[in-house]
């Protein structure tokens, strides 16, 4: 049976791993290649690298870092940050990334989702949504700095219709709080959108992961600081989830 995925996220700035608390106040958490290798040993199912400064400063994700990571690990990883052209995607996939994640560029030009999935296959196109609760859940862009009038539920459906392979859903309300994932919008997406949903933002303890899988039906759960700083060791988390009858790879 297909298992639920545990995905550490490595936010990258200037080639180093950082984790933002509500997207500001970045503190360093080490060398991304070394961290990646550690996570493979621990049993992470997949990794995500987000170049969090790429969109804001219009920088391209570091292809050389992707090459180093690809040489070092034998599990899948996704790269995101500042991707907006076919050439960007091609360069990252050729450097060894398995999937790319697009965010602001897809909101600006939703046709990118169609173009990328046609060219590379939808399975390697992850569309990330940064979302915040207002009158309903709304889409934010540029690393959560800029509001849009778009409703998250509509956007999630549109991503699927345009050929996106997965949705990486980050709740800005929950991110950095360690009070748990945004179960309501995650559950809505999991039940109303036919592509996998990766829940992100708010993981603080093992129960939060169990909840996002069993109550919100997420396909994968992503977290950063709780893994980077060893607050939740992945082997312990997976054992806990399995004991709670969640399908997990051990």
């Amino acid at each position, binding site marked *: 049976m297909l298992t639920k995925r545990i995905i550490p996220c490595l936010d990258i700035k200037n080639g180093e791993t950082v984790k933002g608390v509500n997207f500001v106040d970045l503190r360093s958490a080490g060398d991304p290649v070394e961290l990646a290798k550690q996570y493979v040993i621990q049993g992470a199912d997949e990794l995500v690298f987000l170049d969090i400064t790429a969109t804001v400063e219009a920088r391209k994700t570091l292809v050389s870092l992707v090459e180093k990571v690809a040489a070092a690990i034998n599990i899948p990883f996704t790269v995101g940050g500042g991707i907006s052209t076919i050439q960007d995607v091609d360069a990252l*996939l050729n450097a060894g990334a398995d999937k790319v994640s697009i965010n602001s560029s897809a909101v600006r030009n939703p046709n990118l989702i169609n173009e990328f999935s046609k060219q590379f*296959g939808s399975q390697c196109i992850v569309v990330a949504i940064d979302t915040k609760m207002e009158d309903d859940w709304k889409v934010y862009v540029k690393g959560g700095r800029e509001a849009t009038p778009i409703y998250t539920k509509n956007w999630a459906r549109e991503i699927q219709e345009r050929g996106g*392979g997965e949705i990486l859903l980050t709740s800005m309300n929950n991110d950095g709080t360690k009070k748990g994932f945004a179960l309501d919008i995650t559950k809505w997406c999991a039940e109303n959108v036919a*592509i*996998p949903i990766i829940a992100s933002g708010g993981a603080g303890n093992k129960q939060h992961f169990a909840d996002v899988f069993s109550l919100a039906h997420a396909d994968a759960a992503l977290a950063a600081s709780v893994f980077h700083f060893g607050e939740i060791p992945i082997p312990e988390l997976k054992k806990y989830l399995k004991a709670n009858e969640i399908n997990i790879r051990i």
Partner: protein
Amino acid sequence: MKVVIIKYNAGNTKSVENALLRLQLQPIITDDADEIIRADKIIFPGVGHAQTTMRYLKERNLDVLIKSLKQPVLGICLGQQLMCAHSEEGDVDGLGIFPVNVKKFISNNNCDKIPQIGWNSLYNVQSPLFASIPENSFVYFVHSYYCELSEYTIAKCDYILPFSAALQKDNFYAVQFHPEKSADIGQQIISNFISL
């Protein structure tokens, strides 16, 4: 040992190359017919769209070449699907090595997501390709299309329905999952292929 990875547009050859480098091999990545013919082992990797990829292969006559190979050939993911008779992805005819159809997963509810993405377990594993691979080993899948079960099935997997996680016919081997991304189990499968 000369190992060739067939190069084609939009294919993620880097991951397969890295997996072979970890086995102390120096693979050649090429779409050159002579290089391919002279290889001891040939890997036909795959990330991409069936229609786009078949067009690329045909433009270089690689479709005819691959079919005629006598050495061990390993198709991976889209590589496996293109070795089949026909794919629903872009309604395109494949190489026809396996007389098997490639179909799109159809979900009856939104909980069975398409594509299947993640780690799933293999069962009924047979063939030297899976030497020392235990039943129910986890490997990594990313796909919206699947190869039907057939007499050539050498490993099964369940997602929505049972499908061929791996196929073999004569010197042609193919896997739907990504051994190059399946941690130690995957590395063992690639090593087994190299030892064939």
